[in-house]
């Protein structure tokens, strides 16, 4: 009886060991193709690791860009797309730096972006001016020839904004203290 029990116990232990071996084998087999399976239609046989790493890197870049620059996203409406060009430039440069395509942001790039912003702001103000003049000419407010000139003026802070954009810092960097 005792010997039979021992043999039975040994058999149970053997079975458990085999089962655990099988399960570990299954786990390792299941683990290996997991990253491949998660890849959309990429070349899984040739460069799965490279593509996986590339996607991870881009994912991190995307998260950073959304976190830092999402508020700058341009408005889709045609009537209010001022600043979209600058937004795209900023996003593009941010992507290049984060993705390692370029190492630094040049002063030239900042100047380009600043100019885009300033030009767009100027165009927007001119457009509004023309609109208001047209409305005033058509409307009753123009009956005594008194167009409200206050509304046509630039905001007080505009001069400071332009000075900051085109001001001594960037110009000095570019021209060695000139302008």
């Amino acid at each position, binding site marked *: 009886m005792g010997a039979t029990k021992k043999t039975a116990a040994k058999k149970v232990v053997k079975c458990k060991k085999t089962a655990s071996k099988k399960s570990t084998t299954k786990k390792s087999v299941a683990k290996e193709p997991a990253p491949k399976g998660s890849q959309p*239609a990429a070349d899984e046989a040739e*460069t799965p690791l490279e593509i996986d790493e590339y996607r991870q890197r881009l994912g991190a870049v995307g998260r950073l860009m*959304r976190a830092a*620059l999402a508020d700058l996203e341009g408005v889709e409406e045609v009537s209010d797309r001022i600043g*979209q060009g600058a937004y*795209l430039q900023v*996003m*593009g440069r941010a*992507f290049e730096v984060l993705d390692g395509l370029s190492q630094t942001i040049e002063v030239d790039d900042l100047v380009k972006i600043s100019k885009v912003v300033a030009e767009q702001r100027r165009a927007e103000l001119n457009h509004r001016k023309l609109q208001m003049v047209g409305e005033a000419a058509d409307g009753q407010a123009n009956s005594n020839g008194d167009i409200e000139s206050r509304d046509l003026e630039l905001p007080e802070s505009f001069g400071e904004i332009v000075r900051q954009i085109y001001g001594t810092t960037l110009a000095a960097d570019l021209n060695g203290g000139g302008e």
Partner: protein
Amino acid sequence: MANGRTARQIKMVRNEVLVALNMLYPAALQAEQLMRSLLSVFPEMEWDPFRRDLAYLCEKGYVQRVVSDSESDSRFTPWRQRWFRLTSAGMEVADRVIGDPALDD
């Protein structure tokens, strides 16, 4: 084979364009930036086939061009400097929510 590329290679690149733009969504990228980025995984990639792929994805409605207000005449903006972003349909394909036999392996 199309222009020396196998169907598999074409699908891989087109898929990766969608996946890359999906990672950056809703941001738009210039075609040149996108290609330079993809060169890290497809070093043999060339500009002309890539431009064809981009045009194809636009026509399919998966990618759309974003015309910047700083482009004076968008028709004459060089392809390399054009901005592209993913559409909602492109996002569904990139996320594998819907399938496209022309892009699936």
